[in-house]
Structure formats: structure tokens, C-alpha cells
């Protein structure tokens, strides 16, 4: 085992993850600029989204181009929760935009959002439930691969259209901007302060650890198996549709959490959060970072969004051109993304002469990517 690729060593992986967690947790110690802190927190949310894509696409082989559904629906739930915090049941019972749309009562489905806890709970549960229903429908019918990708895209369009059309309840294209920050237990969470950053950071660490453990469980193994050959898995006695629905819904739940936190930071939601470009963007983050590596996907999001913010202004008009070309190169030459590149490099190092290269077993070195990473 001396020549095993370090990339596949579980202790090494956990060490790298731990280091990453320490670094992101320490950022507020060095950054006091409210703008930067808020921006980094937003990147953390993009990281969560990339991770959710990595789970269902990288590990489960389910290419989901409609992750904006969970993100967007949850964001609407959170925005309404925060909006209702600024309303008063007696003197000011409905949000201004509803008043302007000639509503006299708060519609029943927004009623639970009077309660902060209830609102956040619904923001998380409703999108996840939708994923369960839609996933069950699609996976039972064995819609898979590109067909599923297109259907998720169509569903995303359908939701965006519906939200636009339901203007009295959603404020249509203008979206909802709650006038004040989220308040929990009587404390305002300043979107530009360290508290908000730490909430996001804690969320990111929690979902990353959870996802990592999940991929290392038996469930994770079955998911990776069905990515390659769902039929074989079926004949081994596993209910493939149920497994696919599970991983799809889990990834949806993570995206929903990201949506909630995002609104906490941005205080705004609109149908643009259900734009196809945004959802496909998530896939690009994960693809470039490495869809088979959770951390790779997260860093992919940081890299691309950071590039968009900081390089974008220099390139201005050519940014999308550069991004598109970069993505093409990654798909063509590095299907496992930048993490896959690292895997190759470490693999090559492990094969260095003098270390008992096991020439009879080249496969052992170039390695099983599947064991979690």
C-alpha cells in the first residue's frame, strides 16, 4: 500500500477538509471590511450550491440543470419570512407589494410565514418535498441522463414563469426585498457583519461534513454504482428510483438551505434566481472544480465567482468568452475537473521510481476515484 495515491487516502482527505474549514473560519479575523465579508459569505453559498450539484451529478450521475428550483423557492420562503418580520399583524398586516396588487388579506399559503421558525422550516421543507415528488415521478419512469437534464431545465422554466405570473403573491419580476435584516431571537443579523458570515460558514462546514460522510457510507457507494450501471444495481436488489430520489432530494435540501442563507445576506429574491443561466452556472462551478470531489466543487465555485468579480472587470466583455472556453477545455481534457488534475499529479508522484512501482497493477495507482473522492 505504500504506493497508493495520496489523493485517495481518507486521512489525507479529511486533513485537507479540516484545513479548509479552519481557513474559512478564520477569515473574519483578517477581514474587517463589511463588503468583503459579505462577499465571502456569498461565495460560501455558491460553494454549497456547487457541492449540492457534485452530490447528485458527480456522485449520483443525475445531471440537474434545475437546481435553481430549490434555491429559488427557498429564497422566496426566506424573503417572505423576513418581510413578515417587518410587518405587524394588527396595524400593517400585509406586505406593501400585495397591497399594491389589490390583495386585502394575506393569502393562506403565506400565513405560516408570520412565524420566523415556521417560515424557515417551510422554506426548507417545501422545495425538498417538491424534489421528492418530481424525482419520484421522473426516476420511477426511468427518465435519466440528458432527458432528465432537459426536464429539470423545463421545470425550472415553468417555476420561473409561474412566479412571474403570480404577481399578487410574489411581486412578479420585481421580486421581494425585505426592508430590514433577518432578526433571530431579537437580534438583527447584520448581513455585513461577522455573525452572518459565521452562520454561512457553519452551514457550509456542516453540509460538507454531512455530504462527505454520506458519500463514504454504503448509501454513497450504491449511488456511485448506479451512476455507472443502474440496471446492475437494480438486479442486486436495490430500489434504484428510491436511491436516486433520495440523493436528488438531499441535494435539493442543501440548495434550499443555500437559498435561505443567501436571502439573509442579500435581502432580496426575484425570478432571476430561477434563471437557467444561474442553474447551469452551478454545474459549471462543479464541473470545473471537479464533480467527483466535494471540496473541488466548492473551490470551483470560489474560483469562478471570484474570477467573475475580480477578473471580470478587467476583461469586461471577454469574461464570458474566457469562461466558456475554459469550461470547454475542462470538459474536453479534464472530465474530473481541477480536482481530477490533482489526482493525476499525485498519482504520477506515487509512481516515482524507487518506491516499488507495482507495474503489474497500474490500476491500483491510477486509482479508484469512487471511494468518496
Amino acid at each position: 500500500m505504500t504506493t497508493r495515491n495520496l489523493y485517495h487516502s481518507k486521512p489525507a482527505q479529511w486533513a485537507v477538509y479540516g484545513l479548509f474549514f479552519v481557513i474559512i473560519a478564520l477569515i473574519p479575523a483578517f477581514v474587517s471590511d463589511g463588503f468583503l465579508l459579505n462577499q465571502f459569505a456569498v461565495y460560501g453559498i455558491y460553494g454549497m450550491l456547487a457541492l449540492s450539484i457534485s452530490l447528485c451529478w458527480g456522485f449520483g450521475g443525475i445531471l440537474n440543470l434545475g437546481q435553481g428550483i430549490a434555491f429559488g423557492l427557498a429564497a422566496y420562503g426566506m424573503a417572505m419570512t423576513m418581510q413578515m418580520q417587518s410587518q405587524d399583524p394588527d396595524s400593517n398586516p400585509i406586505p406593501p407589494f400585495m397591497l399594491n396588487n389589490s390583495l386585502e388579506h394575506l393569502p393562506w399559503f403565506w400565513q405560516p410565514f408570520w412565524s420566523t421558525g415556521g417560515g424557515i422550516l417551510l422554506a426548507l421543507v417545501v422545495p425538498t418535498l417538491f424534489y421528492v415528488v418530481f424525482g419520484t415521478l421522473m426516476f420511477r419512469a426511468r427518465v435519466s441522463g440528458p432527458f432528465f437534464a432537459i426536464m429539470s431545465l423545463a421545470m425550472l422554466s415553468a417555476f420561473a414563469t409561474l412566479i412571474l405570473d403570480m404577481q399578487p403573491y410574489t411581486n412578479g419580476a420585481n421580486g421581494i426585498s425585505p426592508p430590514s435584516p433577518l432578526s433571530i431571537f431579537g437580534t438583527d443579523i447584520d448581513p455585513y457583519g461577522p455573525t452572518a458570515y459565521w452562520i454561512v460558514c457553519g452551514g457550509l462546514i456542516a453540509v460538507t461534513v454531512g455530504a462527505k460522510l454520506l458519500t463514504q457510507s454504503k448509501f454513497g457507494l450504491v449511488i456511485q454504482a448506479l451512476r455507472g450501471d443502474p440496471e446492475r444495481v437494480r438486479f442486486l436488489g436495490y430500489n434504484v428510483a428510491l436511491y436516486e430520489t433520495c440523493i436528488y432530494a438531499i441535494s435539493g435540501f442543501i440548495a434550499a438551505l443555500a437559498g435561505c442563507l443567501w436571502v439573509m445576506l442579500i435581502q432580496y429574491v426575484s425570478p432571476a434566481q430561477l434563471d437557467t443561466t444561474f442553474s447551469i452556472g452551478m454545474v459549471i462551478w462543479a464541473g470545473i472544480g471537479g464533480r467527483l470531489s466535494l471540496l473541488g466543487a466548492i473551490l470551483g465555485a470560489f474560483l469562478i465567482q471570484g474570477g467573475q468579480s475580480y477578473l471580470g472587470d478587467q476583461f469586461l466583455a471577454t469574461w464570458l468568452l474566457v469562461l466558456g472556453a475554459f469550461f470547454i477545455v475542462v470538459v474536453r481534457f479534464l472530465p474530473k475537473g481541477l480536482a481530477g488534475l490533482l489526482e493525476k499529479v499525485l498519482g504520477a508522484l506515487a509512481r516515482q521510481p524507487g518506491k516499488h512501482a507495482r507495474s503489474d497493477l497500474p490500476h491500483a495507482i491510477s486509482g479508484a476515484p469512487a471511494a468518496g473522492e
Partner: protein
Amino acid sequence: MTSLDIAPFANALVLGLSIASIWLIAAIGLTIIYGTVGVINMAHGEFIMLGAYTSYALQSSLGLPFLLCLPASFAVVALVGLVIERGLIRYLYNRPLDTLLATWGVSLVLMQGVRLIFGSDPKYIAVPEIFQSNVEIGFASLSVFRLVVLAITALIVAATAWLFYRTRFGMQVRAVMQNKEMAASFGINADRVYMTTFAIGAGLAGVAGSLFGVLAIVLPTMGTAYVVQAFLVVVVGGGTLMGSVTAAGLTGELQSVFAFVTNDTFARFLLYVLIVVFLRFRPRGLFAVAKGRR
């Protein structure tokens, strides 16, 4: 609309036919590319956009008449498709999800490239005055240009059907679709078949683009407006020519009728939901491409 007047409803049906022809011509290139090569081409919308810009550029710089712009757009976009197929797609044939993503990258590059060259302000394609009127067919009324689109769509469907079912090339295509290895042993070059099909599919998108540029507007982002519909036509149809014709007909009529009864936005939502439900029962579409079994 509570009146029992049949005319507006009949008009909606005629209009549905026109919408269907627009969706079909947008989808036809996608159909043959998916049906033959098995590639979900996310850059299809940008091929449409390129077609529109080709017509615009030829018209504004060389003064080419509109009807000549159509074949020219076909040629130019087919060439672009050819280059993309040779340079990228052919390396990804056994990775269907990756082709989907790579072509998305291509679409970003094309969109931004066109924006850099032509700017992001809208452009305009001129058509002969004769296309700028409408005709009354009994109770229904339709613009001449919509009829032109309908006719060109019918022509293209016929030509494509002829090409794929009546010619030697079509036979080769079907042989490759059935069994690539077997076809190769008969001396059919699958590589060349794929290349040609991809180029033709791209070229057809170019023709569609020239027509859409007249109907609406020429913008770098114009392709995205058509591409989801085109995908749905292909998915519902199952990737065959007949499937796409039927699917476009059905969805176009449904859109028109729903829009007549409710409004355009809600009609679109209803249609998408119906398609999801439909796929629950026919996951491979109306007329599926035969796929080899294990």
C-alpha cells in the same frame, strides 16, 4: 370570451399551426443531431442566433436579398457546426452528459463572440414588402410571413425526410444508428456520417435563425428564447423526425389554445407541466429512437 362564436377559436387553431411550425423549424436541426448523433446540443440556440446574424450581415454589407440569405445562413452555420464537431464534439461521443456541458460552453463563447463583433444592440433584417401583409382564409387571418415560415418548414421537413429515408446517405445514417460496428464492416464511415449530420443540423438552425430574425429581433441572446421549446419538442417527440413533427404540432396547438383561454404566461406553465406528466408515462417520447439492448 364567453360567446359561442367559433371563429376566434378556429383562428387560435390556425395560429397554433403557425406556432407549431416555428417551434418545429427551431427543433428540426436539434432533432436530427440528437436522433443520429445522440448529442444534446445546448449551443443550438446560438446556432439559430448565428443564422440570424449571418443574414443580417450579408444583407447590410452586401445587400443580399432576403431569400438568398436563407441558403447562405445554412451554409455559414453548417460550416461553424462542422468546425465545432471536428474540433470538440467528436471527442465526446461516448460521454453524452459531457457533450451537453461542452456545448453549453460553446454557446457562451458564440454568444459573447457575436456580442463583441456586433454589439449588444438589436439588429433588424429587412424582408420584401410582399411579406408584410396578411391574408384572410375564410374566418382565419394569418400574416404572409407566417405562411412563408410554414411553407419553408414543410419544405425542410420534406427535404430532411427525403435525405434520411430515400438516399444512400440516409441509409448510411440509419445503419450507423442501428449498429456502428456492423456499419463500419460494410465500409460506412460513421465518423463522416456524424460530421455531416451535425453540420446539416447546425445549418438548419441557421435557416430558422434567419426567419426568426424577421419575426422578432436579432440579438446575441435571441437563441435562448427558442431553445427550451426546441428541446421540449425533441424530448416529447423522442428524437425522430416524425416524433418532432407530431410533438411540435401538439405543443404548438396546445400553447395557442391555452393562450386563447388563459394568457400567454400561464399557457406556457401549463404546457411545461403537461409535458412532465406526459414523460412520466412515455419517458422515451412519442416515437423513440431504437436503442440497442444489453
